[in-house]
């Protein structure tokens, strides 16, 4: 079980880390009460600043997905993030769909892509 970051992506590293952990939670690979490594361990392995990983953990804690234990890592709380409503979460999805259609993908192809990604997410695949 691992997380991967792309050092040349426009997405900030802390967000990539948070997104990867969320992906694993959704896919069932990180069930509740699973212990995660310390900030120091992940920061050392990825070669990023401690604060980058700490920010990711903090954001996930604020979303209700993790409980951070200082000095001993974090623990997965649950699969449901209780911070944002469905309406708020539709906005980034709307943006991604618009970009796909602007790239020339027909509606059926976009639907296919969405179904495929959702299946992969639930199965825990990348």
């Amino acid at each position: 079980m691992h997380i991967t970051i792309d050092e040349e992506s426009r997405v900030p590293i802390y967000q990539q880390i948070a997104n990867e952990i969320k992906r694993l939670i959704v896919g069932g690979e990180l069930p509740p009460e699973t212990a995660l490594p310390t900030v120091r361990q992940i920061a050392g392995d990825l070669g990023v600043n401690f604060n980058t990983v700490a920010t990711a953990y903090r954001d996930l804690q604020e979303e209700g997905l993790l409980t951070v234990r200082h000095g001993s890592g974090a623990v997965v709380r649950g699969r449901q993030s209780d911070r944002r409503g469905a309406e708020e979460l539709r906005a980034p999805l709307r943006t991604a769909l618009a970009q796909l259609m602007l790239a020339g993908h027909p509606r059926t192809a976009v639907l296919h892509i969405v179904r495929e990604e959702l299946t992969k997410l639930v199965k825990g695949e990348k």
Partner: protein
Amino acid sequence: MNAHALELLFPQLLIVAIFWFIPVYRRERAFFGVPVSAQFYAEAGRQILRRYRFRLIATYLGLFLLEFALWRWRKTPVAVVAVAPFASMIFYALAYRAVAPHWQKTDRRSVASSLAPRRLSDYTHIAIELFVLVVTLLPVLAVFFYYEQMPERIPIHWNLFSQTDRWVTKCVGAVALGPALGFWVQTLALLMKNDLVKSKMPLPASATEEFLRGKQRQLLITLHMFDWMRVFVGVLLFCAAMLPLASAVASLPPLQRTIGVLLPISGLLLLFGLVFFGARWFFLQRRMDARFGRSRIEREDESQHWYGGLIYFNPRDPAFVVEKLEGLGYTINFARGRAWLYLLLIAVLPGLLIWAGAS
């Protein structure tokens, strides 16, 4: 050849062998720790290697001859050859400097990290810890109880043929040095083990889980070897600490013969463990090199932070313990504050020796 010469010869031969083979045991994947092209390794690299090996052999032979000449002239041993490892490190650093500009950087954008916590408790065996604690504390207690019963002149050094070749006047420093050394070694070893468990383990973005399994096995082999060393170095230091007491105190149980048997057996078992676990590490690394093309993942800017191929100083790397460049073992990031703790602990050793000598 006398016992002193034999005592020095074996470890020096081992050091020469290490410096001889380390630069090339992974061929172009880690030529003096640097990943280079096959063409460079076969052509210009050969000249660098020949120059390096010539300097190595010439220095060792020269120092051995000098030591032999000094011993014949002065009739007392002078450990001139002890500086040879330091000279070897300088030659290695010079060769690294010649090779480093040809570092083949990997076009790597992504890096992965395992989400499995690595904790010291997961790699700790209570039986081993209890045994190490006992062999470390027993000499301390023995010195405390039997010091007054020791005669005024006590033996403190034995040669390879078990002949006492050095006596001193009884003093706290001479008697307590052995137990203090045992305590120091085990404290340092436990600290190192804790940091080894948390060593940096970057993973590639592809075949990640398979690579991770390989790295976890490497870590396990390293920690098993470490515990093996702690146990048998503990026994050796126990014997070294108890021997002056056993030789000098009549009321102690007859330990001398037991120690006489325990010492060589522990030494051999220690050696066996180093070879056994070293071989396991070596073959696992070969398999990983063959499967993934490498067994060590590096960042793009890492080459700037290795000095002489031996010292790693990277203030931007939060990791403290990292894999060595050549892939054989680990080293520390000297830019992290924790390095000072190690330097301080290492400085305790000469302090102990000076205190023992002064008392």
